[in-house]
């Protein structure tokens, strides 16, 4: 385990890891030796162990919920839905070809090093601009995240728009896609080799997520007309508009991505600047 918090007593983290069976034999032996000679640490360890055992026991002693037919029905429906997915052809999902454990490993690595990069998508795709590969990586790591997809939630995104604009080097507006049934979940900013990119994540009522990524268009580079590609088995549409590059990553078919791009281009023309 590399990412340890600062602790006034460096030994404390090891006590927990030992209690929970997370240490290897050598580290466990070191903890046992320390516990044998440090009564204060041994007392704390006993307390942690006792409270853990009590909590585990409490479950059996809390009065259980009455069996709910609604829960049973939902459970049955979920089992059937998941069973269909399990027996469905592998390509039924755009991400199906991407090995999920590798994704998780990449996400875990990113968490551990606290840096976003090409690790999320493997090698960068040379057929698309680098920011598009980054956009796909950002989508796969964060947009699929149920719990904390965004740094700034929809409410605070308005407050940070000016800050995001400063980071990006150009006024950026986080567009509303409510008309398309997509509500803003929140935004993130990522540092990449090509400079900062802003990722806005949207969600429809079914919980499908879409990422809109914005990056500064390189000054000398020609404008990008709308293109739709598969990058790392993920559908992405991208284009440039004035000083900004855009990428939309979603499970929606190509036509939908084009519609979103058109919508954004029209919105961008009618309402330029930050908002």
């Amino acid at each position: 385990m590399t990412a340890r918090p600062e602790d006034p007593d460096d030994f404390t983290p090891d006590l927990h890891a030992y209690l929970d069976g997370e240490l290897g034999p050598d580290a466990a032996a070191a903890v046992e030796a320390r516990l044998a000679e440090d009564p204060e640490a041994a007392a704390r360890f006993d307390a942690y162990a006792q409270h853990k055992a009590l909590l585990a026991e409490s479950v059996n002693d809390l009065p259980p919920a009455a069996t709910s037919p609604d829960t049973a029905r939902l459970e049955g429906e979920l089992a059937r839905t998941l069973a269909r997915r399990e027996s469905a052809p592998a390509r039924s999902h755009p991400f199906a070809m991407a090995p999920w454990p590798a994704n998780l490993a990449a996400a875990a690595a990113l968490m551990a090093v606290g840096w976003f990069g090409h690790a999320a998508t493997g090698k960068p795709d040379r057929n698309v601009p680098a920011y598009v590969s980054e956009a796909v990586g950002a989508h796969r790591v964060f947009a699929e995240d149920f719990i904390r997809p965004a740094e700034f939630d929809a409410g605070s995104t308005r407050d940070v728009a000016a800050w995001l604009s400063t980071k990006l080097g150009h006024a950026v507006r986080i567009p509303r896609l409510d008309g398309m049934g997509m509500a803003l979940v929140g935004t993130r900013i990522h540092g990449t080799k090509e400079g900062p990119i802003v990722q806005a994540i949207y969600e429809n009522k079914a919980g499908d997520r879409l990422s809109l990524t914005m990056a500064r268009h390189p000054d000398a580079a020609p404008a990008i007309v709308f293109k739709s590609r598969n990058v790392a088995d993920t559908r992405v549409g991208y284009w440039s508009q004035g000083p900004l590059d855009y990428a939309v990553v979603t499970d929606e078919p190509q036509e939908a991505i084009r519609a979103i791009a058109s919508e954004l281009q029209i919105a961008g023309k009618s309402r330029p600047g930050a908002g």
Partner: protein
Amino acid sequence: MTLETDLAERLHDHVAGLRRYALVLTRNRDLAEDLVQECLTKAIAAADTWKPGTDLRVWLFRILHNTHVSEQRKRHVRRTAALTPADEAVESDPTARVELQQVLDALDQLPEAQRRPIVMVAVEGMSYAEAAKALDVPLGTFYSRLGRGREALRRIMDGTERPRLRLVV
């Protein structure tokens, strides 16, 4: 055993786990069952995001956890009628009942971010890696919250059990 039966059985175990976790965290039977139902409803809608062959339990707990967060925002969960351990379950040992009550009350005093890792590890027996994924926090953050939470729990219990022995800041 067919694939489908196997999946249904695993799911049934996981739903029991979701219920246990929700029950210890909320100490409210109805709220816990509501959370489980809403989690299942969301899971049905988001079934496409589950990758066959990956950890179904982690996936479900992530959804439950998300549900818990949004439910809290929506309803401002009240803890006015916290469940207490059932009388008959521990009647053979009255001190055990007091201890269970104390540890659950102490747990209630901790911030949500610390309660979750503690309960996941104690009640569901998840590994740190699984629990961090299910809670969607980096491993270092998980570790830090678990450690700080357990230490806070210990100090609260210390105060509860032996108030005159020590003053711990």
